[in-house]
């Protein structure tokens, strides 16, 4: 199941100032890792909220995104249990120290994630391209 789910971090609280060693503007995000591990160096390109799911049967269905915005923040430190870790496991709670563009959009109950559909620009790939939209087979250049 988890292979179909996005990499997310569910923000519970945002701390602006701590006695950390990070220079420049940053935020400390307290929250929970989603269905895939998060590693130092990972970059998130979207922040959004999930439409509230209240009834038990709603909780069995995928969440719906609301108020989605583009950002570009990088995870520079991961802290849990007063220690630093290179990775935060799926479902685990911890703090992410993030830097980048869109810090002011990060707030409690927001979710860090990625665009729903990855860009399909294959211009950087020198070997494979589709010949036309209806062709099911890629052509080898």
């Amino acid at each position, binding site marked *: 199941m988890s292979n179909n*789910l996005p990499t997310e971090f569910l923000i519970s609280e945002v701390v602006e100032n701590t006695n950390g060693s990070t220079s420049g503007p940053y935020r400390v995000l307290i929250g929970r890792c*989603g269905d895939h591990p998060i590693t130092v160096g990972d970059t998130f390109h979207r922040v959004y909220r999930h439409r509230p*799911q209240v009834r038990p*049967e709603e*909780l*069995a*269905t995928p969440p719906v995104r609301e108020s989605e915005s583009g950002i570009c923040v990088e995870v520079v430190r991961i*802290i*849990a249990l007063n220690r630093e870790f290179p990775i935060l496991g799926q*479902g685990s709670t911890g703090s992410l120290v993030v830097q980048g563009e869109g810090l002011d959009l990060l707030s409690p109950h927001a979710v860090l994630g990625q665009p729903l559909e990855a860009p399909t620009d294959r211009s950087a790939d020198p070997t494979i391209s589709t010949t036309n939209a209806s062709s099911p087979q890629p052509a080898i250049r």
Partner: protein
Amino acid sequence: MTYTTLDPLIATLFAVECRNHGQSIILATPRGRFAELDPSLTDAYFRRLERSVTLDVLPLEFTEGATHEVDVEQAINFLKPLTSDWLPERIHGISGLASALDEALARRLHLPDDSIRHFAAIMRSRSS
């Protein structure tokens, strides 16, 4: 380290999410059997929200040292009357779990101590 909770309802919500990955059970042990880690800033937040306690043991060690276990279905059946029938039987991923935890908090469904003792008694009877 092993993340645990003092609240059977919270444990059950986690167990319901774990149903996505196979059979799900809840393990329990008397508090004090394993050393607890000092809470960090993050842990203090979730200790308040989810009555979480982080133990200084590997999950496998906790599994081997747990004294009681109950199937998630049994836990749901016990808890439903205490939560006015609000208790999901399926949860979609970690985001769904977070929503369920928030909703349980909003509904003030965290169990009182006498209900927790009752739940522990049921676990003991199931395990004996």
